[in-house]
């Protein structure tokens, strides 16, 4: 295996470690749909009042706690609070419009803690099941490679790449959550699973070429060379596919509106990592694993 793979591999390991450290120190900011709680988006017809003044008015309503107000757009605000019932919701609206004039409520979500917990366990279940399904599928599809390495090696090295691809964007969001108050909502789970699928299919294309080369040239060549050759052969395709997917994601990021902007960002980072990791993480692991088997 060429030394460039070693360097990039350990660079990725470093990046993953940084992501883990970020997650550990800053923690993740989960949205109301995971924690339980309320989110309110208001637009003021007149000038927007100062946020701390608004926070005081909202906090004074009975049954309301944990109020956080942040400005949004020209005249809007985003208010986060505990999960309140409809009565308290109406009281809040009344209190605000009574003090600051006419408002339009664009969004109101109030989610009980049980719903949030449900979402959490479902999301984790979904991620684990899709990982298992993919490893099994890869083991079946690439069983012919068993002369060179164990079929599980493919699945597991692809999964190692996945862990990297998902942890890096999650780390980024730990950072964004800490500095920009950006929350992880349920749509983020969709992003994570899309990254999983995308990263896997990217690794699969490389593995497929490895399979073809192994079947054609047998184990005569050094396995590391075969892998390198396969990577070079699929490089243009990997770059182009990543590029087209990134093009559509960039369109979502810039034109898709506020609500899916960060969803697109998570995907952009993840998809980029996905292309990178199938070359610089999954493939080196495969080669090292293959060595172990032959010696």
């Amino acid at each position: 295996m060429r030394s460039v793979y070693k360097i990039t591999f350990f660079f990725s390991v470093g990046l993953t470690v940084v992501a883990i450290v970020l997650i550990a120190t800053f923690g993740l900011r989960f949205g109301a749909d995971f924690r339980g709680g309320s989110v309110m988006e208001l637009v003021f017809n007149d000038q927007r009042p100062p946020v701390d003044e608004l926070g005081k008015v909202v906090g004074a309503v009975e049954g309301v706690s944990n109020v956080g107000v942040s400005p949004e757009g020209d005249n809007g605000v985003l208010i986060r609070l505990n999960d309140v019932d409809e009565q308290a919701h109406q009281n809040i609206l009344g209190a605000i419009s009574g003090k600051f004039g006419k408002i339009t409520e664009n969004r109101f979500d109030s989610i009980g803690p049980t719903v949030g917990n449900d979402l959490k366990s479902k999301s984790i279940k979904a991620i684990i099941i899709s990982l298992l399904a993919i490893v099994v599928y890869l083991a079946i599809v690439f069983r012919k490679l068993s002369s060179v390495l164990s079929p599980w090696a493919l699945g597991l090295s692809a999964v190692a790449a996945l862990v990297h691809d998902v942890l890096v964007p999650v780390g980024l969001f730990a950072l964004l959550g800490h500095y920009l108050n950006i929350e992880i909502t349920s749509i983020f789970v969709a992003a994570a699973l899309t990254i999983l699928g995308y990263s896997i299919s990217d690794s699969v294309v490389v593995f497929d070429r490895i399979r073809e080369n192994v079947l054609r040239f047998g184990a005569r060549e050094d396995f590391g060379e075969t892998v390198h050759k396969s990577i070079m052969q699929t490089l243009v395709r990997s770059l182009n596919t990543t590029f087209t997917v990134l093009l559509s994601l960039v369109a979502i990021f810039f034109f898709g509106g506020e609500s899916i902007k960060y969803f697109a960002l998570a995907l952009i980072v993840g998809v980029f990592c996905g292309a990178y990791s199938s070359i610089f993480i999954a493939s080196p692991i495969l080669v090292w694993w293959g060595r172990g088997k032959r010696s």
Partner: protein
Amino acid sequence: MSYKYVPIVIVIVAVFLAFFVYPIAFDKGVDFLNSKLHLKGAGFEIPHFFKVPPFRLGLDLLGGTRLVYQADLAGVEGGSVNDAMAGVRDVIERRVNLFGVTEPLVQIEGKDRLAVELAGIKDINQAIQVIGLTPFLEFKEQRSEEETQKILDAQKKNQQLNEDPYFKSTGLTGRQLKRSQLTFDQTTGQPQVSLELNGDGAKLFADITKRNLNKIVAIYVDGQPISTPVVQTEIPDGRAVISGKFSVQEAKLLVNRLNAGALPVPIKLISQQSIGASLGQDSLEKSLRAGVYGLLLVALFMVLFYRLPGVISVLALLIYIAVVLTVYKLLPVTLTIAGIAGFILSLGIAVDANILIFARLREELAGGRTLLQSVHDGFHRAWFPIRDSHVTTLLGALVLFMFSTSSVKGFALTLGIGVLTSLFTATVVTRLFLNLFVGPRTEKRKWLF
């Protein structure tokens, strides 16, 4: 060579599907032609496109609210849980239909939750209150003295605090209520609410009254005992009377509430997600704009990088879009912001198969083969990676669809439909069209590929 006509058929079908997706374009064109025909004095008119179903938009694009209620099934035995939930759904559905919202959605989620989606509703607060007015009606009978004692003892030790020590459920609830009526007691002239039970309810009520002769059968509304009459005789005809100390006004209100449906178990609002209509409209425009720009960027890249095959892949991509949007309309898929994001993302993934094929094609050409051979081998060799990468993405979408909540489901669905469709358009359609350009003339102009 009958194969030659297949691409033409595909184009015609695709154009038809495009009009199916966006019939206004067809109608406008026809109007224009008709006005020309009119000037020339033609005696006929071209008809408009037939009426097609519109796209179904989700709450986040249309504005509206999604409410989730939790049912308290503590008093229901295991076997009749599904029955009780079905009862809750029917009752709430009847209530919700009063709002006049188009296609309200009321469905059971999981074991004990009920989701209500009201698209385009203006006054969400009122809707919540009207649903909240749905009464929970229950008939209860007295516990035996030992049971009462047992529960009281337990409650002294802070156990079984939620149990009523004196009365227990009979299984007769608002579900078996046929209708109710305001009546007046013949002797005292007091207003009362008379209940008429359905067939099952009448049978149950007959049993209950038979075994509780000279005992109390209490009628609970919303967890409060409203009436606690002593049973004088067995009542076989399913008629009961609530004779609390009502004013006429109160009795009337209760009758109205009961007639709109009474719940078999109590429910509680645990989650509310509401989107204003203007925000929805705004999101819709933004998502559509993102889609158009995404398509343009991808198309531009493909044409610049892959030249002739790139043009063909853009054609395949357009056909892909027509097919996918038709599927959205026919199924129908409820389009949400996340769903549209899934669609836009699938544009990028849809050309992946083409990229795999074209990359392979160039490789073969660089190896000095003829165009005919290269195209053939390109498709042949690229098939396995195409299949495997599509299947893995599809697996992800499938799991996501099965194990997630509504907004994410929309994303998984559009992504899944996209992956399946692109498997067809990017391979079969591209191949058919590419073969049209393989011949002696292009063999000399390999730079096109």
